[in-house]
């Protein structure tokens, strides 16, 4: 009996290998598009030559594993755009059915490379959106590059990601870019003098600080540094800075450090506005800082409270589709990355991977929820706005302004 079961089980496994090789992966399209796709698949190569060829866009997100939540938001973000498209993309007056193919990366770089191979070789997608983690993007990037398949990473902030090659783009801004957003905000607010305290052992803090100094038109009165997250006492540095009496204080540091720093800055007599990077966007910072959190501003990629028309349109569409939640930055960045791909498909000179790549590179002034976006053709990073958020006395964040540096 046991042997029989084992044999059955083994054969079931083998069968599933054989049978599933040919079946298509997780597809989700409107019924019409799905039907069209099936028809196209049945008709095999002949159908692909017809004008209304199905356009497939691949998505690589972590839908299981520890990062599953991010993947859920990402799929929702893409779904919003899919809904808006109604299952078709119009290219040169021809309506092409569009298919979004979601594939699970499990947040693992090994699985991401498998997913890329599958999307590129088997599904023959025209472009890939995702993944969100830098490690996955770094591992899978060479595959997309070698296959000549354009790839827009959503949340991969590591500068090395787009250095893989000219087919790899990203939708998020890289860490140093936040420094220029912060500088632009300070100009807008009319701050003339600034002080900085940063962690010299952390690439994020150093990059942010350098970009801020480069872009800040006013005068930097004092820069103090410390080494590592295990430092808990910043009074020496902060007291030195307090003497300078600056218009603002920049703290481009990690979230575990920020709470104490904000608290100690206030007690050291620094009453000026405090500006931080997007690491301040965690509840921990507000909890540790206590009352001192009131008025602390930070750079963020996107706010659901933003008043820009593109942002309102996105948030409204999102809430209509998913009434129980507000879009977070994963959802928003995926929406933006997908929007970049879709607009590139619409503007592509030739409807193939190379055409789409060229069109992504040529994106200029595309209206996105986080502001107007232009692709930097040399670094393949987006040039776009950020938003400034501010904590109130309750530790709740509010949208202040959109900044286009």
């Amino acid at each position, binding site marked *: 009996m046991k042997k029989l079961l084992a044999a059955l089980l083994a054969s079931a496994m083998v069968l599933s290998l054989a049978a599933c090789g040919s079946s298509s992966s997780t597809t989700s399209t409107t019924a019409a598009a799905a039907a069209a796709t099936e028809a196209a698949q049945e008709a095999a190569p002949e159908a692909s030559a017809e004008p209304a060829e199905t356009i497939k866009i691949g998505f690589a997100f972590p839908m299981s594993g520890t990062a599953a939540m991010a993947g859920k938001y990402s799929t929702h973000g893409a779904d919003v755009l899919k809904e808006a498209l109604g299952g078709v993309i119009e290219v040169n007056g021809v309506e092409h059915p569009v298919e979004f193919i979601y594939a699970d990366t499990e947040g693992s770089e090994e699985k991401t490379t*498998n997913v890329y191979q599958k999307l590129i070789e088997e599904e023959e997608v025209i472009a890939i959106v995702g993944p969100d983690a830098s490690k996955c993007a770094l591992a899978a990037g060479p595959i997309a590059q070698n296959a000549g398949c354009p790839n827009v990473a959503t949340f991969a902030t590591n500068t090395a990601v787009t250095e893989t090659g000219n087919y790899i783009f990203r939708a998020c801004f890289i860490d140093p870019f936040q420094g220029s957003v912060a500088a632009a905000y300070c100009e807008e607010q009319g701050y003339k003098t600034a002080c900085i305290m940063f962690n010299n052992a952390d690439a994020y803090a150093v990059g942010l600080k350098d970009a801020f100094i480069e872009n800040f038109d006013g005068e930097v009165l004092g820069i103090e540094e410390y080494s590592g997250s295990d430092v808990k006492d910043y009074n020496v540095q902060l007291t030195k800075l307090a003497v300078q009496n600056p218009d603002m204080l920049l703290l481009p540091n990690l979230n575990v450090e920020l709470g104490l720093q904000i608290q100690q800055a206030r007690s050291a007599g620094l009453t000026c506005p405090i500006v931080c990077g997007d690491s301040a966007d965690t509840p921990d910072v507000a909890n540790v800082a206590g009352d001192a959190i009131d008025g602390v501003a930070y750079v963020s990629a996107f706010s659901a409270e933003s008043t820009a028309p593109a942002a309102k349109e996105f948030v409204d569409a999102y809430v209509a589709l998913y009434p129980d939640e507000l879009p977070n930055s994963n959802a928003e960045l995926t929406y933006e990355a997908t929007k970049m791909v879709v607009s590139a498909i619409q503007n592509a000179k030739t409807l193939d991977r190379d055409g789409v790549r060229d069109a992504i590179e040529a994106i200029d002034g595309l209206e996105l929820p986080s502001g107007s976006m232009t692709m930097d053709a040399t670094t393949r990073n987006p040039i776009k706005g950020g938003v400034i958020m501010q904590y109130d006395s309750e530790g709740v964040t509010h949208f202040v302004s959109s900044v286009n540096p």
Partner: protein
Amino acid sequence: MKKIVLLLQKLSPFIGCLIFYIVVTVLRSHKIINGYYMQVLMFAGVNVMMTVSLNLVNGFTGQFCIGHAGFMSLGAYGSAVVTTLIFKGSHFTGVAQLPVFLLSLLCGGTVAALVGCLIGIPSLRLKGDYLAIVTLAFGEIVRALLRLIQPIGGARGMIGIPNYSSFGRILFFVALTLWLVRNLIYSPFGRAFIAIRDNEIAADAMGINTTKYKILSFCIAAFIAGVAGGLYAHVLCFIQPDSFGFTKSSDFLVYLYAGGSGSLTGSVIGAVLLTILPEMLRFLADWRLVLYALILVAVMLYRSEGLCGGKEVPFLKVKRASLYKEPIFGAKKNAAKNG
């Protein structure tokens, strides 16, 4: 004639892998197998090597190593340092590439084996659960240390590793591993391993230096895992310390026990099936990993010794008569008890 049969049997892992290679190459040239399948098969090959090496420690020597990914990461970093940092990556094409790659794999394997020895000497005096904890801690220490070393990328990982691992090369190393481990097990060394597994006290009483043999098995396993790690690094072209965490180690444990510990056939089948299965279940979307887990549960319920526990396909066996004049401590009885 008898000699030819004997020779064929001796080289059977190579012949088996060669046949598999030819089949896959033919299918690939007819576009039946695309790059995606090739990639999955390459990962499967690496996993086979990892599982076989783990089998040597867990299955044949009866120790419990749960930090095997630590050795893999040492090998991956060791070989990636050679190809990427010392030889500066992609300058090598054609003929010069292979020796560089082999040298890097040798380096990776040696680093892993040396570290395996280093931690084996003090810790293999421990038994059972205690050894398991030490190996677990070892895996985590390696990970934490690799995160600190900046020249190899620290926590951000190493990028730009050349893509030297091809399907054929991996398959060759799989064959080499199978051949090596099979011959080892059917040698006096292997008999000593199995004796330690079956009853350590009795083995000791028989005059086997148990600590020595445990360290030996540990080192050989670490070496194979290091080479597998080197191959892995050159498939993925990117490694970071966090990829070799406890989850990776536990993957290999799952492959080993689902396939059947103490059986080389089991290691191969377990690693290949369980690497391919999650990919082939992709059509199920969110239910994919649920079904995967259910299959594992079913295997364990109905075949707790693993799919091939205690069984071996003929080509991974060595006829005892061809190696020994007389049988050594009741090997047949041991084989039945495997798993």
